[in-house]
């Protein structure tokens, strides 16, 4: 394939995964079963790299997708929003095996965005007057009180896109987009799994969601269906 030959960012999955160090903070895209980088997650499980802090919306199901990282004891902690689909999270937490930091989903998305665009913290209404407000700074603007949320930055982001061109410009597919574009902005090393690699110039510049400057490494996935 010509596009693959001309793509300097393209790597094999094991080579890309080999760049992730033990103990890394790793942002991983996806919402439920849509838009998670399945091949990269599989590769990360095979690598056995552990002590990871996984920053994602949810953690899939037990022993499936992202859930497999926890079943494999590769996780030191979780930062995310919704673990109802994976009862192993509560078990591991109650046994003291992992830490869990729950963040409201909108605050999570914005905290990742903030990290990507150079904003160290922001104020939000979400969580005021609840358990998650404990220990957080509050400030009143007008008639309302807000919570201070710090940006969430990571060492690595593993994201999923539909198509990349050889430079690494990305477009997405329906609700498989979710957190992927924002996570692409918020890590030192960004590895994108894509269904398809196309020649430079083939993607309409008006349609590009993630510009290539955010993407360090591309890998080819299987093409989710």
């Amino acid at each position, binding site marked *: 394939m010509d596009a693959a030959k001309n793509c300097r960012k393209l790597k094999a999955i094991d080579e890309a995964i080999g760049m992730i160090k033990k103990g890394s903070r790793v942002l991983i895209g996806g*919402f*439920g*079963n*849509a*838009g998670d980088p399945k091949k990269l997650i599989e590769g990360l499980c095979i690598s056995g790299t552990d002590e990871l802090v996984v920053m994602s*919306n*949810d953690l899939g199901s037990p022993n499936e997708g992202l859930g497999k990282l926890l079943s494999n004891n590769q996780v030191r902690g979780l930062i*995310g*929003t*919704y*673990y*109802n689909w994976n009862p192993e*999270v*509560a078990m591991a*937490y*109650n046994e003291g095996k992992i830490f*869990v930091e*729950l963040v*409201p*989903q*909108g*605050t999570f*998305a*914005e905290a*990742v*965005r903030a990290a990507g665009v150079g904003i160290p913290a922001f104020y*939000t*209404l*979400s*969580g*005021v*007057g*609840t*358990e*998650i407000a404990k220990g957080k700074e509050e400030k009143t603007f007008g008639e309302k009180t807000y919570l201070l949320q710090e940006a969430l930055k990571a060492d690595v982001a593993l994201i999923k896109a539909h198509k990349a061109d050889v430079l690494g410009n990305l477009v*997405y*597919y*329906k*609700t*498989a*987009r*979710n*957190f*992927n*574009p*924002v996570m692409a902005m918020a890590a030192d090393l960004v590895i994108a799994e894509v269904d398809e690699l196309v020649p430079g110039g083939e993607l309409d510049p008006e349609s590009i*969601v993630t510009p290539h400057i955010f993407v360090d490494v591309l890998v080819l996935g299987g093409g*989710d*269906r």
Partner: protein
Amino acid sequence: MLPELNEDLVRSRVARRVAKEFGDGDVVNLGIGIPTLVSDYIPENIRVIFQTENGVIGAGPAPEKPDLRFIGAGGRHLTLLPGSALISSDLSFGLIRGGHVDATVLGALEVNQEGDLANWMVPGKMVPGMGGAMDLVTGARHVIIAMTHTTKKGGAKILKKCTLPLTAKGVVGLIVTEYAVFRIREGKMELVEIAPDVTLEDLKAVTEAEYTVADPLPIMQGTEEE
């Protein structure tokens, strides 16, 4: 005696009543459970734009052939309606936080008379996660709770004070159950509609919260269509 209603009727009654709350062109987010059913009962002359927090503006009903990468926040398969848009999670919650969503419909474990809501942490079960609920109820302009009136064991869910960890304080504007509709304004709760065959005494027995009663008190909208 409260009327005995089967589960399907309970769910459809609540969903049908909630569906009458929207104006033409409203942007609405539906939570999981009974709220998901609301889209099936939107009156024909009203066009509601459904937003899902995982990135759709203008979501349509389930397709004949499901696309696994096109789901609503509750996991329901979706279609795109003409004019719909696909967006990322950060922009989606930007819409919510920024007050661009007219109404959110959610389930609840407990609601109290001042509009506090508890709907994310079940007692004795740690760490399930709040998902987008805290953002939705603080960002949407109108918060509607669609739920069964009592717990499965018959305990009150509409309380003087919530006992479970809160999702947010003072956010709920309307509560719709199979027996009644309550409106909460400025920290005060009022019974505004009552279902057929439900007496004020019956209702009080399963509602711990203190509330005033609208006069006149209409029959719950939509029950005549059952």
